[in-house]
C-alpha cells in the first residue's frame, strides 16, 4: 500500500506525518497525532462525533476523509478552540446552558456550531436545528444545545455586553 508524506496544521501547529493510503483523517488525528478529542462514533458519517473544521470554518467528518488527501490543510479540533486559556464563546455557552452530558458528542458538536455560526451568525431556531443535523446527541434531547447556540450567537454578536 502506498504511503504518503503529508503536513497538517492542527490547531495552529504544523505536523509532518506519513500515512498509508487507507488512513482516515480521524485515525491520523487520534492515533498518529494524539488528538483524541476527535471521536469515533459510527465510522459512517452519521453521528458527527468525528467532526473537525477545515480552514477554521468548514465542518467535515474525519471518519470519511482520507488523511492523504488533506496535505497542507489546516484542521481545528475541539482542543484548539480555546485561546490563551479562554474558552471559545461556543464552549462557554455549552457549559453555561447545561448542554453537555456524557460529552462524547461535545467536541464535534461545538466545532459544528462554530461552523454554523460562522456561516449564519444570527440563526433562527429552525436554522439552528437544521444546522445541528448530522451531530447526534443521545443525552440532551438537543433542547439545551439549541439554547446554547442561541446564547453563543448573542455572545459573539456582543449582545448584553
Amino acid at each position, binding site marked *: 500500500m502506498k504511503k504518503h508524506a503529508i503536513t497538517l496544521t492542527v490547531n495552529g501547529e504544523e505536523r509532518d506525518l506519513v500515512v498509508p493510503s487507507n488512513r482516515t483523517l480521524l485515525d491520523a488525528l487520534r492515533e498518529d497525532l494524539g488528538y483524541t478529542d476527535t471521536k469515533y462514533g459510527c*465510522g459512517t458519517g452519521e453521528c458527527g462525533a468525528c467532526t473537525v473544521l477545515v480552514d477554521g470554518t468548514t465542518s467535515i467528518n474525519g471518519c470519511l476523509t482520507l488523511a492523504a488527501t488533506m496535505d497542507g490543510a489546516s484542521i481545528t479540533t475541539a482542543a484548539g478552540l480555546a485561546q490563551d486559556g479562554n474558552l471559545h464563546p461556543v464552549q462557554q455557552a455549552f457549559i453555561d446552558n447545561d448542554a*453537555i452530558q456524557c460529552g462524547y458528542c461535545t*467536541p464535534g458538536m461545538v466545532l459544528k456550531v462554530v461552523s454554523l455560526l460562522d456561516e449564519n451568525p444570527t440563526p433562527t431556531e429552525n436554522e439552528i436545528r437544521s444546522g445541528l443535523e448530522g451531530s447526534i446527541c*443521545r443525552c440532551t434531547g438537543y433542547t*439545551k444545545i439549541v439554547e446554547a447556540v442561541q446564547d453563543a450567537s448573542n455572545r459573539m454578536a456582543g449582545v448584553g455586553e
Partner: protein
Amino acid sequence: MTELKVVGKRVERVDVRAKVTGGALYAADVQLAGMLYGKIVRCYDYAHARVTSLDLSEAAKCKGVIKVLGPKDVTQKEYNASVLDMMVSADMRGVLGDIDDQSIFTDHVKHYGDAIAAVIAISEEAAERAAEKIKVTYEELPVYMTAEAAKQADALQFRPEKPGNLAFQLPEMAFPDNAYAWGEVDKSFDEADIIVEDTFYVPKQKQCQMEPGSYIALYDDQERLNCWTSTQMPKLVQKKLANLFELPMTRVRINATVIGGGFGARLGMVLEPETCALAMAVPGRPVKVLSTREEDWVTSPSRHPGKYWMKMGFKKDGTPVACDAKFENYKGAYYVDASGTAFTTGAWLGGMYKFDSLRYRGESYYTNQSICGAFRGYGNPQTNFVMEQMIDRGCAELGVDPIEWRKKWHKGVGDDGWCIGVPYNSCALDECLDRAAEAANWTEKREKYKNQTGTKRRGIGVAVMNHTSGAMPMLLEHTVCDALLHQDATVTLNLACSDMGQGSHTTLRQVAAETLDFAYEDIHIATGNTDAAGFDIGAHASRTLYVGGGAVKQACEDVRRQLFERAALELEEDVDNLYMEDKIIHVKGSSNKSISVQTIADQGVNNFMNPETGELIGQPGQIQGYASFFPPHNAPPFGTTIAEVEVDMETGEVKVLELVNAHDVGRAIHPGVVEGQLDGGAQQGLGMALTEETYYDDKGICQNNSFTDYKMFGPSDMPKMTNILVENPDPTGPFGAKGVGEAGLVPPVGATANAIFNAIGIQILEAPITPEKILKALEDAND
C-alpha cells in the same frame, strides 16, 4: 430547614470543562506503552448455528499477529454478564437456578454477532486483517426469534435446565400462581361494566449511547488484572471479573473511564470478559478492544421486545375494578437479567392505579436475538405504552376526561407502591397533572380537536408514570462513601458511584457541600478506582443521587460531627452549644469563643507537642467521615407528559408539536441537571413511540444495527419542550431528592400514543407507531 446554599443552584458541572475542550479521556482515548489490539471474530452469517470447524492457522501467520485464540484457549468458565445475581440474596439466587450461560467464545452461535474467536496483534489494522483469515464453518440450526416460536414443543432447547426455553417466569415461591397480584381478578371482572382488552407489541429499542464499547485490559507484573472500561458498575464488574478469572478482588482493578453515555447498555459486563481473556493470554501487555458501532449494537443489551397482553375492567362510575396482564418478552440468546424486567414491567403496572384487583405475569423466553437487558426505564416504557393506551380506551368508553380519571384513581401516599408492602411515602402527581394541563391548554385543545375533518389532524394525549429511586427492596441497595478532610479544610469524597453524564458527580458534590456547609469548590469527588473505593451497586435504577447522595450525606455528617466534637474539646463547651458559620465554629451567644475548621483540620494532620507544656496542640488524627449506607426506602418519583401531535391522514406521518413534562422530583438538587434528564429522556421516549426498533430478517440477521438504518429523533424532529419541576421533598431523600434518571423517558411513550389516538380515533397496538402502521390502521377502519 435553613436556607439551602448549594442545593438547588445551577452550579457549573464538575466534568464539563474537560468535555468541552476534548480533554476528557474515554476508554478508547487511553494509550498505554506496548499496547496490543484485539479483534473479536463474530458470526454474522447465522443467528443460530453450530461451529463445525474453526481454522485459526492462516490468521496466526499474518503479519503483526501475536496470538490467535479460540474457545479452548480461554477460560471455559461460563458466566452471566448481568450483575443482577449479585444484587439478590443467596436464597433468591437459588430460585433463579443456573443462569451462567455465556462463554468468552462459543461453538454454538445463538445470535447474530456471537463471538467465536479473537486475534491479538500489534495494530488494529493487523488484527482486523488477520481476523478476516479465520475460517469458520457452520451447521445451520433453526431460528427462534419470538417467544411464540421458542416455546413450540419441538423447538431446540437453549438450556436443558430451562425447559420450554422459558428463561424466567415469576417464581411460585414468592408469587403464587406465578403472578404478581392482589385481589381476585377473575371475580372482579364480573363486577365490571366496561372491559377493554388487547395484545400489543413493544419494540427492541437500542440505547445508542454515543461511545461504542471500548476496553483495555492488562494482566500486570503483580499478577493483577486491570481493566479500563466505561462501565456503569465498576464494583460489581470487579467482582464478576474476579469470579470469572478466579482471582481475589485485590487482584482485579477497574479503572472507570469517562462514560460516553450508558442508559443501561453498560449495566454489568459487556466486552470486559473477552478483553480480559485476551489480556490474560499476553501477560504484561495491555490489549485494547474497540467495537464498531454495528458490533456494539449486537453485543450490548437492548430493551426487551415482546407481546404484551392486557385487560382492564371498569365500573360505569369509572372505578377500576380489575387489571390482568401478561408480558412475554423475547429475551435473546442468553439469560442476562431475565428475571429483572419480567418482574418490574408488572411492578410499574401495579404501582400506578388503584385497581381492586390486579394480576400480572411476566415471562422471558430465550430467542435467537441479541441479548436484552437494562435500558433506561427497565420495563416501564413497555408498560406505559400498553397501560396508558388501555386507560385512555377505558376513559373513551366511559366518556370521562383522561386527566380527571387519572387524578382520581392513581395511587398516592399510603398506597402500596410498585412493590406490594412498601407504601408510597410521597406523591405530587396531582400537582404535576394540574400544572401540565394548564401549561398545555389541555381542556381547550381536547375540545378543539373533536370532530376534525382535514388532511392534517391534531391530537393531545396524556400519560402518567411512577418509578423508583433505587431498587430497594427488590435488590440490594448499598453505597459506601469516605469523606477525607484535608489539612486545608477541603474534602475529598471517595466512592464508586459513576457519572454517565447525567450529572451525578455534580449533584453529589452539591449534597456534600450543603451537608458540610462548605463551598462547592471545597469538595472533590474521587471515583474511578475500585482499589480505593468501597462498595457501590453502580449507576442504575435512578439511584445514584438518592442512594449515593444518602451515603455522601451520611459521610459528611460524620465529618461534621467529628469537627464539632473536636471544637467542643478545644472550646471547652458542649457540642449542642456550638454552631458553624463560614467554616468557623462558634459558641452560641459568645462572640469571641471560636475555632476555625481550618485549624481543626490542620491540627488533626500536623499535630505537634507544645514544648513548654508537653501537651498536644489541638486534637490529633485526620478526620475522615464514613458511611456504609443502605437506604430506608425507594422514594418514588411520579410524572406526567402531555403530548400534542399532528397526523397526516394521507401519509400517516406524525409530527410531534409539543411535550409538556411535569415531574415530582422531590427536590431539584441542580435544576439544569433535572431538566437535562427530562429532555434527554423524552428524546428516547419519543423514539420508542415513533421511530426506533432494531429488527431482524426471518433468518435472524440484524437489519439495522447502524445509525444509517436505525433512526432516532434528531434536532429538527424534537418538539417544543416544557419542563415543570414539582418539588415536594421526599422524607427519605437527600434534601428531599428523588431519582430522575429514567422518569423522563417513560410518559412521553404513552402520551404520544394517546395523542395519536386523540387525533385519529384509532389506537395503534405496535410500537414504534410508524406512518406505515397508521395508514394501514386508517384503511382498515374505512373497510
